């Protein structure tokens, strides 16, 4: 299994030192919530991730930015094994996910257990369309986590209220706006009380005027100390909420650091170009 160091001979990745520990801001506070080491992922002959290493401590908000095809979504989806990594190591809350030599999970049960601690919010919401918002939110607590029904419903109502959908609990997703659906998806994610939340471009499918309401909810979650990995195109938002920003370029971390550094004083030319192109 290649390590991060040996797998990164690319001289372009000079902007980042070999230690890629995130959360300089928070220092030693808290344990590692997510640790990725030397993550590789290939689709056939196309190598999408070429040895990415990243650590997020508890309470960290890590924003992952990069151009289209840079591998940022793939990286996020490897963390909960929606994509099977080709090589590397993933540790969640100190528990390493056991992998076979080809990267496939060695223990399905372990993956399923760990997935309940990682809540993912998708670009296209992916709510279950045949269930009402309330049913969407209570589904996993009741059927996977075995929470008593009454308790799950009470908690779901609180969460829907929190994301501003208290009066929509009996609506079906298809009858709601994208912003409402995404807020409901965030409520569904919160219902499992995750230790890490994975946001995969949560506002990319939304009309511009609906982006704000979703970002407000995410901002609140960041403020209350939720650990989050956030793949986003909203640079201003990333700068505002993130403790740490990672810029991916062609499957490698090109540059990373505190948002003020990454956005205010980019060292890599590619990052500078990228920031110019999106602003």
């Amino acid at each position: 299994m290649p390590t991060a160091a040996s797998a990164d001979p690319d001289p372009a990745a000079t902007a980042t030192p070999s230690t890629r520990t995130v959360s300089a801001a928070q220092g030693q506070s808290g344990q590692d919530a997510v640790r990725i080491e030397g993550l590789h992922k290939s689709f056939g002959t196309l190598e999408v991730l070429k040895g990415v290493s990243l650590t997020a401590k508890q309470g960290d908000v890590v924003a992952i930015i990069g151009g289209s095809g840079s591998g940022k979504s793939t990286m996020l989806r490897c963390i909960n094994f929606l994509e099977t990594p080709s090589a590397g190591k993933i540790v969640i809350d100190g528990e390493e996910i056991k992998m076979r030599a080809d990267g496939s999970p060695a223990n399905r049960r372990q993956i399923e257990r760990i997935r309940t601690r990682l809540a993912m919010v998708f670009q296209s919401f992916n709510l279950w369309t045949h269930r009402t918002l309330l049913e969407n939110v209570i589904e996993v607590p009741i059927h996977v986590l075995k929470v008593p029904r009454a308790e799950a419903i009470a908690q779901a109502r609180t969460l829907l209220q929190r994301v501003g959908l208290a009066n929509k609990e009996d609506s079906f997703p298809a009858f709601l706006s994208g912003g409402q659906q995404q807020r409901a998806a965030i409520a569904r994610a919160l219902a499992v009380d995750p230790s890490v939340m994975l946001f995969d471009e949560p506002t990319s499918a939304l009309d511009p005027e609906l982006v704000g309401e979703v970002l407000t909810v995410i901002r609140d979650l960041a403020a209350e100390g939720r650990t989050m990995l956030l793949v986003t195109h909203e640079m201003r938002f990333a700068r505002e909420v993130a403790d740490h920003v990672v810029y991916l370029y062609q499957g490698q971390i090109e540059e990373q650091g505190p948002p003020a550094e990454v956005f205010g004083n980019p060292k890599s030319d590619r990052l500078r170009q990228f920031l110019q192109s999106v602003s």
Partner: protein
Amino acid sequence: MELILETLGLTETAALLSLSPPGWGANLLRGLANSLQIALGAFGMGLVIGLFGAYGKLYGGPILRDLLAIYTTVIRAVPELVLILILYYVGTDLINKLAQFMGYGRVEISGVVAGIWVLGIVQGAYATEILRGAIQAVPPGQIEAARAYGMPALLTLRRVTVPALMAFATPGLANLWLIATKDTALLAVVGFNELTLETKQAASSTRSYFTFFLAAGGLYLMVTLCSGVVFARIEKWARRGQPSLRQGGL
């Protein structure tokens, strides 16, 4: 009542169709009950085969996929009447050979069970294709969300995939059910007392072909109409949460 029948000239017909002997009404209804029993059994068996078949075709290994392709192709290629003859005679023959081999005597195979098996295998081939299409129509994101939240495969199937595919599968399955009710008539050729054979017996005994076959046709129509109501409800339930296509106000 009798006056009405009299004026319409239907007294004789009413006597023929009467539920108590010498009328043949009870025989027809018994035949209908047998037909429905077989249709229900075969449809249910077809659904089970279809669900496994669809999953096998979509997610199975190459050998399983090939076997299922042979199954659905052959079953759908051969006329159902021929299939029924083959499966019925070959099937009962095989079971008897097996029974003799294991030291039992000849086994009496109930017509209902044989009918359910034969039609179930036919229905399974069609159901495989209907359900395969429906599974593919389920937005992959919904299954992905289930996986991402730690649902095991069977729970995902039960809680997400099957409810979601119902919306796409119901019209096709309603067709299949109606075909099942009518395919039971083919079992008349192997001497099973379903509605068509009962009708034929009643008709040839009394020489009143028109009366009895019209009555049987009426019974088949009733089954279809009732099924229509039931499937409309199922479809409405299955499509809950999906906006109506007519919402644009056309």
